């Protein structure tokens, strides 16, 4: 490059690099280019945006084979499936996401009816036993949510994609809510049947410890708000992994600990009638869908938070 041009090659150069991300604004001025580049920035996009980005890349590849995928762009490397198959899959998911609230609106009343009308009354415990259906469902969702935190945390450390850290955060929040419900409903159930609010049963205690650990996780990610973005998610992810790895150890130690001491209450075998099992499965499905819906909503919220921040920043820069 001749010398006299090199003096103002700064802006040009940066534009070049951006155009690799978004080749449509090749001719645009820098300002408008900035505006368009940000929403499609793969690092800051969430579920839906990410899909869009992948789509755009897929389209680009189809339309113009000359555009090589950016090396640093993880998303391009990730989609090895054919674009059409991906589109189909994506569409299915989208349809499902769209109608999930309506499905839930039908399922929740149905499950209420199932639990309170369809399910038979337990002989010994009476109506209190009906807590069981939601209690077990929530416990399952709680554990599952924490597993999602663990998996998303690992994924975040590997890819450093913001999406995973948001997923972990959202899942932890919802998991804590469900586990709180499990603990409370468990106590309500234990009082009339076992004649005690609390007993150091391994399952109970593990849930309690789990609840404490994920409260700590939320406390951590809340406290980290003032820190730098990347270290925030990273530290939270690290604790998410440590906490989950501890779960089996907690369960093991408590189980052994309790067997040394006289066990006050033994839960009987699963003497459930077929009807009870049907209701249980139905409420499991309902609560799982509820979890999924809440997760989506929370993700969207977190994503919007980031976008608002970006907008504010851009406005501030304008000024």
């Amino acid at each position, binding site marked *: *490059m001749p*010398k006299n041009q*090199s*003096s103002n*090659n*700064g802006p040009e*150069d*940066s534009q070049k*690099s951006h155009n690799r991300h978004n080749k449509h604004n090749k001719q645009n001025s820098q300002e408008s280019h900035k505006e368009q580049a940000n929403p499609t920035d793969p*690092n800051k996009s969430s579920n839906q945006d990410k899909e869009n980005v992948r789509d755009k890349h897929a389209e680009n590849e189809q339309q113009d084979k000359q555009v090589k995928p950016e090396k*640093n762009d993880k998303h391009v490397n990730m989609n090895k499936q054919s674009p059409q198959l991906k589109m189909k899959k994506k569409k299915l998911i989208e349809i499902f996401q769209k109608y999930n609230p309506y499905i839930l609106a039908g399922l929740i009343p149905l499950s209420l009816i199932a639990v309170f009308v369809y399910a038979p009354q337990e002989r010994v415990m009476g109506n209190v036993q009906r807590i069981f259906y939601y209690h077990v469902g929530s416990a399952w969702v709680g554990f599952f949510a924490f597993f999602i935190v663990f998996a998303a945390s690992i994924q975040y*450390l590997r890819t450093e994609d913001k999406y995973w850290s948001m997923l972990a955060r959202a899942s932890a929040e919802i998991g804590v809510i469900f586990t709180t419900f499990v603990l409370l409903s468990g106590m309500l159930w234990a009082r009339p049947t076992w004649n005690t609010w609390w007993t150091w049963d391994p399952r109970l205690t593990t849930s309690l*410890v789990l609840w*404490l*650990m994920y409260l*700590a996780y939320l*406390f*951590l990610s809340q*406290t*980290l708000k*003032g*820190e*730098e*973005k*990347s*270290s925030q998610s*990273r*530290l939270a*992810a*690290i*604790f998410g*992994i*440590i*906490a989950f*790895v*501890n779960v089996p*150890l*907690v369960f*093991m*130690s*408590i189980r*052994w*600990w309790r067997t*040394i001491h006289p066990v006050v209450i033994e839960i009987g075998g699963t003497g459930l009638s077929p009807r009870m099992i049907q209701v249980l499965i139905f409420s499991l499905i309902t609560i799982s869908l509820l979890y999924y819906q809440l997760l989506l909503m929370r993700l969207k919220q977190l994503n919007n938070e980031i976008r608002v*921040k*970006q907008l504010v*920043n*851009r406005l501030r*820069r304008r000024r």
Partner: protein
Amino acid sequence: MVISKKPVISAKNLSLIRSGFKIIDDVSLKLYAGERLALFGPNGAGKTTLLRLLAGLQETDRGEFKYGYQDGGNNNLDKDSGKPRIGFLGHDIYLYNDLTGRENLNFFGDLYNAPGLQGRIERLTERAGLSLELDEKVRTYSRGMQQKLAICRCFLIKPEILLLDEPFTGLDSQASKFLIELLDDNSSAAVIFSSHDIELGYHLASSWVIICRGRILDRKQEDDYDSSQIDQISRDSQNSWSSREFSRHYQKLTGQKLDAHQLDGKNRGSADYNNKITEKSPENKKEGEKNQKKMPKTSRPISRMSGLKFARALLVLVKKDLLLEFNTGQLSGTVLLFALIGGTIFSMSFLPGQDNVQTLFPGIYWFTQIFAALLILNRSFLRDTENSCQEAILLAPILRETFLSARIIFNYLIFLFLAVIISPVLFILFEAFPVSGAPWFPLLVLLVNLGLAANGSLLAALATSTRFSDLLLPVLLLPVLIPLVLAAVEGTRLFYYPELDQASLYFWLLFIILYDAVCLLINFILAPYLLKE
């Protein structure tokens, strides 16, 4: 002057974005051995950040850079960590306040396994005029002396790359001369320095860039370098702008006025300086060539470190921690005093007696120690953040796992020290000597403390990367410790029954071993992520 064609740093399209602002914007540069690059720019232009990026102290958001060069040959990058020897002089001086000057230099030299360390320390400090104060604690040094010692630390390791962030601040004229001399002595090293003193920088450097709002100007961009052409790069072509042009461009870019005459005024110095470089002594040249011959292709990812080297680095780090402890007595004193007070108060509030030893004592015994441990875990990490020493350690060619492992060992030693002293005291206060199976007791203590040290160090490392370490640590650590506490308490309880329940004891011991193993494993896996940046 002739620069070798071997780039020691090649950076391509580096970008760093923080909360929507581009702090570094698409910067590409190559630096060759023996080159001396000056970074100019107004405050907040991104000079410091760029230097930190190049040192590997901060991760880039986009772009990549590597040390050494790619095509074949040998290399003197550290084989295991893939890092060259980097001398970094930042805003922080990277010296431990509670170590003496000599101990500091010894430690940092040992980290790099520098040969002939003692002799070099003597020579360097004498030239810096520090030999009298060498055995004083750094805390007592003046700002200028600290800066001089920091410069010694940089040059001690015979650096291949020198990244100096405003090295002349706080130096008197003599010290500045000392620094310039050192730079000349190490002419085979590639140097980047930032400076606000544009005159000085302009003449000291062989090439320069202006950085403004994260962009750089006037270095040829990476793409323009064709690797086949780079046999010789003449400085003159780079430096072909006259002082007038330079000042015009500087003004255009930064909006700050610069008087061209100012630059011309000191041309005498620069002429001298240029002569000096061209008359580079043959030994120096040879040394430079020797260095470059050793460069193999290496990329940044850290490969496994050989066991021996790992152990050596571990030893150096633990030794440093012990020295710090020996000099201040902070941690051991605190932990001991707290445990003594805690034990006394516990024994007063739970009236001791033989009948309730089994129920109460194991819990009290362990909680006294765990609370004491909680008190110092953070501090053991915060000592390293003083003057950002941790960064200097992470710059060294050691694995990040080593850093955390050394901390675990040190904390383990402190906890054992505590256990040895506090156990008899608690036994006496509570009249609770183990009734049966006493020989097993030390083993239990050893194992539990290992788990405590491993988990505690990991979470303390996590907590101290935030601003609320004191609040966070107990909240994070205690839930995670629950299995260990249960096992420790239940295991200890067994010793207070007239007959030892061997099966239970074995179970708990095995369980604690499992817990320790899991903790250490997690430590090792997560350490590189934890100590990033």
